[in-house]
Structures are given as C-alpha cells and as structure tokens.
C-alpha cells in the first residue's frame, strides 16, 4: 500500500519536474519569469486532446503537443521578446500578456467546458502493486519524467550546445567575451521551455481533464516547485519536484484534507530556512561584468 502511495508521489514528482524544468531553464538564461509557459501548457493540452480525438495514438499526439508549445514559444521569442532584450521587466509583462492571450484564445475556440480524454489499450489499464491498483499511465509519467531529466542533464553536461548554454546562464557577458553568440541560445532554450510546457500539458490531460484555465491552475505548482528548488537549477528542480510530489502523495494519503496545503507549507518552510531554494545560490551574486 505504501508502495502505491510512493509511486503516486513519484508520478506527481515526474509531472512537476516536466512542468517546471522549462521555466527554470528559461529563467537561467533569460532572467525572465516566463508566465507564457502556462499558455504553452494549455496549447499542448489542447493539441494532445485534438490529436487523440482524431485517433492519432498517444506518441504522435504528445509529440504534436510538444511541437505546438515549442513553435509558439519560438514565435513569441523572436517577435515579442527579442526586441525587448535588456528589458527584463518588460519581457515578464509581455509573457504575462502572452499567457492571457493564449488562455483566452483557447477558451474562445474550444469553449470553457471540461473535455475528457480517454486513454485506450494498455494505458487505460491498471496494474497491481501491493494489492492496490495503479494506473499504467502514471507509470508512463514516471518514465517520461526520468527520460526528460536524463536527456536534459546529459545534454547540458556533455554537448557543446549544453556547455554554451551553461556558460550563458553563468554570465551572458563572459559568454559573449568567449565568442559565444547568446541570442540564438536564448531562442533555443526558450523554444525548449515551450516544448516541455506543451508536453506537460499533454501529460496533464488524461488525469485532470482538458480545460482552458488548466495553465493558470498549474502555474501555482510550477512556482512552488521553482521557489523550493532554486531558479535556474535543473537538479534543484528535480529535488523540489520529488519533495513536493512525495509530500503531497503521503500527506494526501494520511491526512487527505491537508493535501493541497502541504505544498504551500513546504514552500514556506523552505523560505524560512533557505530563502535561495534547496539548490540555489545565496543572493548577492551578480553578473558583475554586465554593462
């Protein structure tokens, strides 16, 4: 039984990680709190719903969701954010505007009602763990979460692009001084953030339904994960996802009425003890080389 609870926690953690990793990465390289990520999330949610509704099968539908999120993000970065380079505050307000527009556009086109997504075949089944049924879809969620973490971590650690991205996150000025062109890196990372948000949206549909305000509803969790983990840190995001996901599952099992509260309590606790987040750096370090 406890195994079942732990697996639920892990599947939540996997979802939170995919949901928040993009936001964290984008903050790392752009310094932008990317509200629009909630918009790409909703776009991905509906894209997957559309694909599944047309009998595409889960893999093409989910890839489609990620692509929709990524393409939207790329368009936004190139047309709206890039001209505001150097004006971080303006960029944040712009991403807020993009989120509002995307949410409302989805609401306009598909209506405010909740659509249900039906999984078929193996993914609609459950397996028994410790005498309790556990949905196969949630196992898939864990697998995808692990896969995304490994891909991100390995790509950042072992590829040239990953090295340049990390250099840009460390200091954009120093990266330029080392001959790295930072502008395309920003576009790439921002589009990647959009893809992850879109994929997270696709993964959200099967267990919570498809509705326009889903993005805003999950934004709270994203922010909690990112505050707890430390902005811009992928391992921090993973650690925070695990803490929040497992705490939510365990507390939800033993004290169901506190399930929602526990996230916020964890966040407040972390803030009190470690304001920079689990794996963030202490405040005060600036990019001293910036103009």
């Amino acid at each position, binding site marked *: 039984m406890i195994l079942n609870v732990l697996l639920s926690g892990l599947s939540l953690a996997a979802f939170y990680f995919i949901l928040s990793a993009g936001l964290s990465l984008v903050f790392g390289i752009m310094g932008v709190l990317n509200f629009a990520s909630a918009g790409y999330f909703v776009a991905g949610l509906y894209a997957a719903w559309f694909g599944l509704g047309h009998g595409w099968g889960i893999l093409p539908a989910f890839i489609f969701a990620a692509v929709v999120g990524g393409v939207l993000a790329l368009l936004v970065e190139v047309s709206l954010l890039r001209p505001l380079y150097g004006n971080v505050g303006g960029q944040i307000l712009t991403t807020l505007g993009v989120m509002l527009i995307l949410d409302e556009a989805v609401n306009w086109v598909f209506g405010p009602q909740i659509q249900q997504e039906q999984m078929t075949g193996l993914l609609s089944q459950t397996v028994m763990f410790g005498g309790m049924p556990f949905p196969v879809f949630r196992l898939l969620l864990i697998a995808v979460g692990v896969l995304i973490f490994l891909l991100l971590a390995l790509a950042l650690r072992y590829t040239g692009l990953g*090295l*340049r991205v*990390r*250099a840009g*996150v*460390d*200091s954009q*000025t*120093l*990266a*330029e*001084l*080392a*001959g*790295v*062109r*930072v502008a395309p890196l920003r576009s790439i990372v921002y589009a990647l953030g959009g893809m992850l948000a879109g994929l997270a949206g696709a993964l959200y549909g099967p267990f919570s339904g498809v509705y326009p305000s889903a993005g805003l509803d999950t934004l709270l969790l994203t922010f909690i994960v990112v505050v707890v983990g430390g902005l811009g840190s992928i391992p921090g995001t993973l650690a925070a996802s695990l803490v929040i996901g497992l705490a939510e599952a365990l507390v939800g099992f033993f004290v169901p009425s506190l399930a929602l509260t526990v996230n916020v309590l964890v966040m407040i606790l972390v803030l009190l003890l470690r304001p920079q987040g689990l794996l963030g750096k202490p405040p005060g*370090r600036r990019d*001293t*080389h910036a*103009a």
Partner: protein
Amino acid sequence: MSLRLSGIRARIGGVPVLHAVDLEIRNGKVTALLGRNGAGKTTTLRTVLGLTELDAGEITCEGRDLSRLPTWRRAREGLFYVPEDGGVFQDLSVQENLKLSARMPIAQAIEPFEELGPLLGRRAALLSGGERKILALARAYASRSEWLLIDEPSLGLAPTVLRRLAGAIQLLRGRAAMLIVEQNLGFAQSVADDYVLLLDGRTVDRGPIDTLRQSSQFDAAMHFGQSEGGSSQ
C-alpha cells in the same frame, strides 16, 4: 600586426569618461596602461571589447574596423579580455572553462600551466584568486587570441603568485600583443615593454617603460595612484 585605438570617446551612464584615447599595441609587446583611479583604464578595455558603447573614434585590428562588431565577433577576431576578477565561469569546471574558447586540445593547452592539471574537474568558483588568474591566462593561451587585454592582473595576489603570473605573461608575450591595466607600478615595470599614461580620459604620454619616471606627465597622471592601489573602479 597591430591593434589601434584612435580618438576613442565613451560614456558611462551618460557621463563622458573617455575623451580622446589613442593607442596602439603590437604583437610581441606588453603595453602597460597606467593612470590613477577613475582615469578610464577599465572603460578603455571594455570599449575595445564592445562592452561599453563607443561614442566616437575607431578600433582597428590590422586595418579592419572592429567598432561596429558585437562583442562575440570581436572575441572571434582574436580579442581576449581578462577582467580584474579573472572572468572565469564560476559554475563551469576548469576543463569546461578551457574548452569553451579553446582552439587546441586541452592537454596541450595546460602544458605551460601544469598547476591546472590536478584541478581540471574542479568548479572554478572553488579556485583561489591566484588559480583563477592562471586559469584566465590559460584560457587566453588556449584560444590562440592575438590581442590580450588584461585588467589589474596583480590585484589581490601574494608576491609568490605574482611571480608565477609574471612568468605566464612572459609565456604569452611571444604569441600575442598585450595591453595591461596596472596599479602596481613595480609589477607593471617587471612585465611591460611600453607604457601609456591615461589622465582624465585622455592618453597623455607614451614611451618605453624604462623612461616612465622621466615622463613630463608622470606626476599628473599617477598622483595618488599608488596610495589607492587597492580599490577598484
């Protein structure tokens, strides 16, 4: 083979800092850019790299105009800037720091900097001040940059480390032209061939470093320079 600055003007936050900076550095030579605090030494270096916007004047590298190029293009043209804290990537390992701008195998790059060998896997944030400066020079060496601009290499270093640093600069001398901003006159005299004196945003005199004390502008340009040597702009 020369990097030439002519008639450079620049502002910081709207306040004019550089009024007329003219200088030239040549391959195989180390030029010390000297002047008291606030004279515009660091701003001069930053302007050459495009970190501070150029108001007027020209920066040419072997006859090509660099003034309009973005920072990353200037870096690819062979300009390498070492800010006073070394300018290494804190979150990257020593090896990754080298790899980012290297145009030679890492093993070859650290041959002259053997003290970095055991540190390759260490995060640069954990290096000592001296190790960080050595890493910065190793990066410059590995990048085969032809124009090195080094801000206050001696700042905050112990005498033994200074000697090591002077050795590293001698090593790079044969491969690049260097412009070094210094407050420590002794160190400047031990590594430089020439000097350029900067006073209130203007280059006022230049010559071989041995004749520095005879310069008519020396007192005006360097007054208070030594006593404030510890602070930064």
